[in-house]
């Protein structure tokens, strides 16, 4: 029998950091607190730790690219992340979804919108326990924001360089 391992420490988790990262994706403070609790406060310790680490890293990436324009991402469409209550207790309408939706625009890079492929992707991303589904949605927001920033940059060839050109003696390779 393998030796018993204790759960990893999650003392490094600082919910306020993730709260700040998701501020534009979930503007309402109470809604955001609920989402952050689900991502960082529920489920096994290693899930919580992973969510924190990956969201922080993605947040850093977005910051270094110039910040996130979540409003623009939201305008291009979102899908609700449903709560997984027992089917016979489901209530029709938007009240049984999480306050954090899943943006569709980043997924359109992988599969055209309104296709079975994209629908399957949405389903995969929003399936599973809430700490997975909401962390996935949060990551797609951040990845989408990063892609948007990268998309705004001019292509490398069009960028002017301040480095002086030097004549190369070697002929170009054929």
């Amino acid at each position, binding site marked *: 029998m393998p030796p018993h391992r204790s759960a990893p420490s999650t003392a490094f988790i600082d919910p306020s950091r993730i709260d700040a990262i998701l501020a534009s994706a979930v503007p309402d403070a*109470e*809604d955001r607190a*609920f989402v952050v609790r689900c991502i960082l406060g*529920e489920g096994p310790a290693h899930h919580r730790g992973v969510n924190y680490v990956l969201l922080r890293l993605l947040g850093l990436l977005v910051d270094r690219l110039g910040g996130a324009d979540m409003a623009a991402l939201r305008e291009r469409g979102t899908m609700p992340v449903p*709560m997984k209550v*027992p089917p016979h*207790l489901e209530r029709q309408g938007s*009240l049984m979804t999480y*306050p954090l939706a899943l943006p569709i625009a980043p997924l359109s890079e992988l599969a055209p919108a309104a296709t079975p492929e994209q629908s399957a992707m949405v389903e995969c991303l929003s399936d599973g326990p809430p700490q997975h589904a909401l962390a996935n949605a949060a990551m797609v927001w951040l990845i989408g924001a990063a892609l948007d920033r990268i998309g705004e940059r001019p292509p490398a060839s069009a960028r002017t360089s301040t480095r002086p050109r030097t004549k190369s003696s070697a002929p170009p390779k054929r």
Partner: protein
Amino acid sequence: MTQADVELPAGLDQAFGAVAGELGQATSSWLFVRAVARCAGDRAVEGLADTAGPQFVVLDAVARGWLAGVREQVVDPRPVLEAIGSATRLVVVGVEATFLDALVARINPAVKIAMIAHSPFAVDWDRVLDNYGGRVERVDLDTFQHWAGGKSALLTFAYGQNDSRTIVAPLWLRACGADVRAQFRALVGWNVLEAPMNLYPRWLVEVDVDSFTHFVPGT
């Protein structure tokens, strides 16, 4: 017959058990303590704590608190309303009539309220809900998740706080499992017992204060 001559009748523990489920242990305790004090004085309140207290620890706490000078019940729903915030649905886990009455009287009329009809005591749930004139609906332990959602809150009553621990009805643990915790935006504990409990909490169970999103101290 003076107050000092009035003896406590036998069977008060049976009497308390008959109402604790319907009014709540804290509400019932205050009712009993006031009645006993009015008719038979503080010495009888001590007798009440000695006879019925071991079985009903909330009654013991309220009676001992009375003897220590705590003569008024603090009922202020405002912090609970803040904790509930903009929730549009509220599911109440457990019964405490005095406190729930105060909350229902102050809460936004647009908030829908339900009560989980489950108790270790015998309860006439129709009578409990009739007191709210249709304002509070009845749900069961196996169907209350129908009320889950991003704008839903769960509320229960807590009986004292000791550092990081508090005491609640076991129904809270049955209702607020790992799945339910992520389906209600706010998990609110409302402390309804000012005086600390000195005895092992029969009928009740200890939990971490941190297990709530909002813990209202009540004092």
